[in-house]
Structure formats: structure tokens, C-alpha cells
């Protein structure tokens, strides 16, 4: 229970469904702020009190579990490291993957609980064979299945999303008001919970000291200097500060950020169009497809609030050492698992824009989440000379 309206209503619905429910608030900082400020909707003492007051009204016990050390390492530090490496991570997904449905779920199961229920907007269905499937929420506008795409079959088996079938957020707020929750009108949280003022750029700049480097065009010619490659996002147009205009006079956009050489590659807008994305770090959500090495139709979503795009996906072998995750001898660098080096290659029917390494691509079959992969590389839809 974050202290927000969704988890409060979710807890109340679990109780009414006949479950034995305990409210748990995650302490994600050793030094929580006292009062809620700005865009945050979690993690302060005030939020913890809001959660406890909701638990009081529901009539369930309430505890604070301290995951601050894990959160710092697995989410905050990971966010900083990924950003420093020129990738665009999603800390909420990381938190779901490593904290809420990993450390928290494991501790809960060990302590004798059967499942973790959260206020996420997503639906879990069980197929004829008893396997769990993750589907989009009924209210597509609030659907959060994207950030849950990292869940595995085992995690789904112990997860419950009581808000998944609710037609709208307004309905959840109305229900909260009817139940007498003080948080019924509390603003939604957005932005990143551990960056209090919402200034992600400024927060990162304090932690990743910027160094000046070159801005290049796609042919490798130096166009200017930048104050720190990590401050650039793929697709960015403003703030490039290149003295000479492009030969064709068209505006230039950030096409690529290369952390190792501390360079930023710019080019025309057309060059932002991505025709293929691929990553070796992929997981299946629920039952894995029987033959993923055979190209199959799907839709792909590359951001929490992006529209899904029709695509073809396929798992293909990668030459050893070709990428960092499954390196030599097929040993996965992150997990130490030995498996044949493969990557999930996704080819959208229409080129995508605003895709950068580090982002997560979630693959859907209709409303069902089939799996996800962290994007390692992208292939432009147009050639250098286009």
C-alpha cells in the first residue's frame, strides 16, 4: 500500500473477496521525506500514514517493510548506471521486476502469504491448462500491463490485480470516496518516485558527472561539442547548439548516444525511424511460445503510454561475443546462466520513432502480454544516405 488511492481500493476489494489481507507499505528510502511534495505520491512519512489510515478503515493490520537497501541497489543505482551507459531505463519496471514481484513476493511467500495484490491496472487470466496469462486492463487508458511485462509464470501465479476489471480511474476514486478513504482525491503519482522535484535531468547530472565530447553526423564528421553525452535522449531536437546548419537546412535530431566514446550522433528526422529492434535480455510472461524461432505476428509497445504497433517477432541465434549479455560461450553476463546465445528481434510493420537502447519492448498477442525484452540495439529504417 503506497499511500495512493489504487492500492487502498485494491486492498479493500481483496478483503471483500474473502481473502485474509495484510497491508504492507514498502519503505524505499532510509531518509524518507516528511511531507508529500510536488508530483510524488509515495515514499514520504505522509504517504505511509495515508496508507495506514486506509488500512485502519478497511480493518486490516498494516506493516512497513524496509526494502530501502535493495531498492537503492536494484533500482536507483541501476537507473544511474544505465543512464551513464547511454541507455534509457524504466525504473518502475525494474522495481516490479526486482522489488515488488521479487524481493517482496519472496519474503511474503516465506512468511506464509499466498500472493501479493497490488493496485496495478492489469488482468490475470487462467487458461484451460491452469496457466496464468497477463492481459491488459479493461480500462485501456489506465492499462499498466506494460510495466508488468517482466513477470514470469511463477510470479503471475502469486500476483493479484483487483483493479484490472475496473472501467475507469474515476470509478476507483468514487469507490475510495464511498469507503471513506482520505486518499480518494489524492493526486496520481507520476514521474520517478525517488526524484522528489521531478527534475530527472538535474538529479542525474548530480550523480553522473558530465564530460564534454563530440557531436557527430552519421558519416562520422564532427559538427560540434557537447557538455555530456548522457544528457541527450534519442529523438531530442533542442539544445544541440551546433553552429553550422545542416546542408539541406533541415533540423537535426539526436539519433544515437555512444557512452563509450562519449559522442552524440545527430541527423535528419527521417533517420529516427527505427525498422528493427532487438535484445538478448528477454523473458516470457506466462507460458512461452512453442516455437519462438519461427517468426510470429504480434504487437509491440515500447513505452508505458505508447500505442501498440503491429510487428513480427522471432528469436534468432547470435554469434558468440556479439553482444554484452550473452557473451563468449553463451554465458549470460547478468545471470550467469549458460544458454545458447539468442536475441529477440522485433520488426514493426511501420517504423517506430523515439526508441533507444535500454528501453523495454513489450510484446502482445491481442490483449495478452507475451513477453518483454530490453532493447540492446536498433536498426534505422533508412540508410545513411537517405
Amino acid at each position, binding site marked *: 500500500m503506497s499511500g495512493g488511492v489504487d492500492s487502498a481500493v485494491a486492498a479493500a476489494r481483496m478483503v471483500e473477496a474473502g481473502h485474509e489481507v495484510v497491508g504492507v507499505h514498502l*519503505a524505499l528510502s*532510509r531518509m524518507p521525506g516528511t511531507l508529500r511534495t510536488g508530483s510524488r505520491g509515495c515514499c514520504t512519512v505522509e504517504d505511509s500514514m495515508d496508507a495506514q489510515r486506509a488500512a485502519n478503515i478497511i480493518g486490516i*493490520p498494516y506493516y512497513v*517493510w524496509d526494502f*530501502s*537497501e535493495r531498492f537503492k541497489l536494484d533500482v536507483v543505482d541501476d537507473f544511474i548506471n544505465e543512464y551513464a551507459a547511454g541507455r534509457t531505463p524504466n525504473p518502475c519496471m525494474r522495481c516490479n521486476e526486482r522489488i515488488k514481484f521479487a524481493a517482496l513476493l519472496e519474503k511474503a511467500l*516465506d*512468511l506464509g502469504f499466498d500472493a501479493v495484490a497490488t493496485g496495478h491496472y492489469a488482468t490475470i487470466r487462467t487458461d484451460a491448462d491452469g496457466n496464468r496469462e497477463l492481459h491488459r486492463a479493461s480500462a485501456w487508458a489506465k492499462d499498466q500491463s506494460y510495466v508488468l511485462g517482466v513477470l514470469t509464470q511463477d510470479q503471475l501465479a502469486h500476483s493479484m490485480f483487483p483493479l484490472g476489471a475496473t472501467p475507469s480511474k474515476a470509478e476507483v476514486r468514487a469507490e475510495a470516496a464511498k469507503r471513506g478513504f482520505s486518499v480518494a482525491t489524492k493526486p496520481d503519482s507520476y514521474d520517478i518516485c525517488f526524484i522528489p522535484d521531478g527534475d530527472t535531468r538535474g538529479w542525474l547530472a548530480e550523480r553522473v558527472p558530465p564530460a564534454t565530447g563530440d557531436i557527430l553526423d552519421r558519416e562520422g564528421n564532427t559538427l560540434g561539442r557537447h557538455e555530456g553525452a548522457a544528457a541527450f535522449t534519442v529523438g531530442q531536437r533542442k539544445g544541440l547548439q551546433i553552429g553550422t546548419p545542416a546542408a539541406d537546412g533541415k533540423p537535426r535530431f539526436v539519433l544515437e548516444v555512444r557512452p563509450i566514446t562519449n559522442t552524440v550522433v545527430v541527423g535528419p528526422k527521417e533517420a529516427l525511424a527505427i525498422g528493427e529492434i532487438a535484445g538478448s535480455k528477454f523473458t516470457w510472461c506466462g507460458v512461452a511460445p512453442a516455437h519462438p524461432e519461427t517468426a510470429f505476428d504480434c504487437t509491440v509497445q515500447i513505452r508505458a503510454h505508447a500505442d501498440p504497433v503491429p510487428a513480427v517477432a522471432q528469436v534468432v541465434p547470435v554469434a558468440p561475443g556479439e553482444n554484452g549479455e550473452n557473451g563468449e560461450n553463451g554465458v549470460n553476463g547478468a545471470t550467469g546462466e549458460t544458454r545458447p546465445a539468442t536475441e529477440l528481434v522485433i520488426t514493426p510493420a511501420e517504423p517506430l520513432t523515439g526508441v533507444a537502447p535500454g528501453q523495454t519492448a513489450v510484446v502482445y498477442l491481442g490483449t495478452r502480454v507475451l513477453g518483454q525484452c530490453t532493447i540492446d540495439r536498433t536498426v534505422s529504417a533508412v540508410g545513411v544516405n537517405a
Partner: protein
Amino acid sequence: MAVYLDHAATTPMLPEAISAYVSAMAVVGNPASVHSQGQNAKRLLEEAREQVALSLGSDPIEIVFTGGGTEAINLGIKGLYWARRPRTRILVPGGEHHATMDTVEWLEQYEGAVVEWLPLDSVGRIDLAAVERSIAANPHDIALITLLSANNEVGTLQPVAEVAALAAAHGIPVHVDAVAAYGHVPIDFRALNDGGASAVSVSAHKIGGPVGIGALVLSRRASVVPLLHGGGQQRQVRSGTQDVAAAVAFAVAATALGDDLSGENARVAALRDRLVAGVRAAVPAVIVNGDPDAGGRLPGTAHFSFPGCEGDSLLFLLDVAGISVSTGSACQAGVPEPSHVLRAMGRSEVEARGALRITLGRTSTEADVDALLAAVPAAHARAARAGLADRVPGR
């Protein structure tokens, strides 16, 4: 039926204290008013002060009622510190209650204090030789020494009289935090004061009185600068209209302690010893913290470290089983900190995180101990499985 084994946090109010409290709340009159109704309220207040003084071996005039133990400790430490200017050194043992730690750190940050932390040994007792060395280094710049009389987490008793004697040789005032000790260890303020201690802090709700009232027992010979300014009540030391009803209820609880604590102490200690033996039998790896010598710690305190478990998990599992215990830690946002007392005693972070404090009191029974011992094996098994899940592996 909930089993309450967290008497060190607060102990149930005595029924006779509750009825005295309620009756006294119906009495009209500010004890500082001149009219007869005011005089009647004043009479109740001063009778209460006399009874509380009796339980602490002090003169009634030496009892300064406060809004609780925390205020008494703040008044004792800050008041003595300011009165002793320009001296700046404060000697304080590690592992003190947060009311002391945060107060001396505040004085360090805002008032120029130089805080010198005295080490604790493995059972939680200060080293008198270290105190002596710290004093000898420069006895003239020490503003005060403050220390717990009994540790609120592990229950270890401190050599208060010996520290006071060392301080007295140089005229250094000593403040004693007796909040945890009050009601369990005889407190003879006259003897302490003659031996060099200047002030003792106590709280009513630890002995069956109400929350919201405590006292600083302040020697006639000591002077403190007040925290609160106003009507000049209580020797100009603590302004504010005095809470007659709370003082009356406090006095009932103080009187109920009786002249001899030994009978009740022996009863509670026997329960505690059976509890400790039972937990040891159920969990052979458990570490019992505090002075192993029964005479060296509070009778009702049992303090454990369960290696490989979060105290947090054990607390939760026992709570679900209807048993209230504590991790003995300060919970500001409900975020449990690893026990700073165990850390000050040189224990590992793992032992500090696996800490569980079980404290018995006046209402504790054999059945309470039975219920705890019945619940411990399953709770421990589950907590051990959950382990230190919320910690980073390998650290």
C-alpha cells in the same frame, strides 16, 4: 486474546490509576489560582508530588513534572548544558535512548557542544576506566555527563553511582535517564544526589501511570536553564499550567510500587528466565543479549538476536499469532532501524537486524510465557526462511 509482552514500550495503566485519573479530571480549578477551588487543585497536585517524591527518595520540591520522559531528558541535558556554559564537553555512552542521543546531537549541531561517546562492552555496560580517562583529559571543560540507569533495549544496568562519584570529584553534574529502570530498580535520589548526580528523568506510563506525564528529579543544588518560558510554575524551571489529574494518576502508580520491589521483581524475573530458557531450547542458535548475570539487568527484559532472521519478520509473525513484542528500535516512519544499542555493543549488523525485545511486567503471567513459547518455533522457522530477503545478498 492478545498477549502483551512489550511492557518496556508502555505497561497497562493500573485500574486504580485510571479511576483516580478520571475523578481528578472532574476537579475544577487551576492549581495556580488563588481562590479556594484553585487551592483544592493545588492540594491534590502537591499530595501527588509528595507521593512521587517518596517513590524516588527525593524531596517533593525536587520533583519537576514534565510532559513525559522525553521532555524530562531534554530539560535535564539541555538545561544543565546551558547552565554550565562556557563548558562544552558532554560525556555520553553509546546505545543511549534516542531522547538522549538526538538531544546531545542537537546541542552539538546548534549549541557548540562537543559530544564524547563512551564505549559499551559486549553486555552493554560502560567502561568506568574510559569514563575516568575522559574526565581526566580535561575535567574543567565538561558541561555534564548523562547516562541511562538501565538500557531500554537490552536491560543492562549501568554503574550510575560509580560514574557519579567520578564526576563529583570535579563538580561535574550527572543526568541519569531512569525511564527504563523506574519501577524495577530502587531509585534513591537522596543517595544519588549526595553521591554526585544532579538530575534523574522518569516517566509515569512505564510504571502503570498515564502517558503524557513524567518528572525530572532535580537537586536543590543543581541549576538548569528552562526549555519552556511562561508563568514560572515549578521553581521557574517548567512553566505551564500543571496537569493535576495526570499527577494524581502518576502518584497512584508510584505509590503502588510499594517500598519493596523485590517480590514482584523476583516473580517477573522467574517468568523471564523461563521464557529465555524456552526460547533457547526452541532455537539453539539464538543469542541472548545483555548482562547474563541476573543482578546486572532489568528483571522483565529478555533481549535476543536471531541470526539470519529479520527482527521485523519475527515481530510480524508473532503479532499474527496474537503476541505483541518489539524489535526494540525507534520507528519514526515505521521504518525499523537495526538496533543501535547492539551496534554500540560491538555486535554485527546481522545480529542487530535480528534483534527482538520481549519485556514482561506487572500483568504478565505464566500463560503469556506459554503462549510465546508455543508460537516461537513456527515463527522462527518462517522468519529464517524469509531470512534477510530485503537485504542485498552478500552484505
